[in-house]
């Protein structure tokens, strides 16, 4: 069955520190992978997506993610976080004939000043 696992429900980092949010997926074919962010009071915003090609994907707001097929992972990274990055982050997978996107449960990021 298709699934997405985000093992960390909450993560706290200091402003300026590096960040890595973990995501593992289970999918029967080549997946389409996404990271979305939801800031307080906002909708879901697409940070980046991977369909094929270069496994290191650059997104908006200085985020990047690396697709590792051997590990079934698509971790999100940022070299230096800003207070405005405090939000909830969702990893998602899609690509089946049914066109659904399956979301992980989300990781809430807290930033210490």
């Amino acid at each position, binding site marked *: 069955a298709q699934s997405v696992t985000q093992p960390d429900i909450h993560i706290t980092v200091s402003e300026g520190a590096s960040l890595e949010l973990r995501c593992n997926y289970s999918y029967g074919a080549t997946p389409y992978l*996404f990271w979305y962010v939801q800031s307080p009071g906002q*909708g*879901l915003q697409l940070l980046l*997506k991977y*369909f094929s090609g270069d496994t290191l994907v650059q997104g908006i707001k200085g985020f990047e993610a690396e697709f590792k097929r051997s590990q079934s992972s698509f971790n999100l990274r940022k070299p230096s976080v800003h207070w405005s990055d405090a939000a909830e982050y969702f990893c998602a997978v*899609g690509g089946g004939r*049914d*066109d659904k*996107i399956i979301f992980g449960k*989300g990781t809430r990021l807290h930033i210490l000043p």
Partner: protein
Amino acid sequence: EAGVTQFPSHSVIEKGQTVTLRCDPISGHDNLYWYRRVMGKEIKFLLHFVKESKQDESGMPNNRFLAERTGGTYSTLKVQPAELEDSGVYFCASSQEPLSGAFFGQGTRLTVV
């Protein structure tokens, strides 16, 4: 360019009442999706429209939920009668191409008391 717009942003209704949520997708986007996030759970797919046709409604929880997209523009999601377990945030998303990374609205927070 206007984004995906959802109305209302919040709704509090009593059990047994009817509520209608509306979604205005980005102009020109044929694909329209409804998702729901129940508190503490992951965001789950409800259904997918291509223009005015339901492409996939496998995620609709039961027959108390009715989605329409007359004319292939805006969509409505009606819950009748509402139950306590229907509480959550309902997201609408639209895209030009399937799985291209949909644009999400801010969501409608529905509370059934």
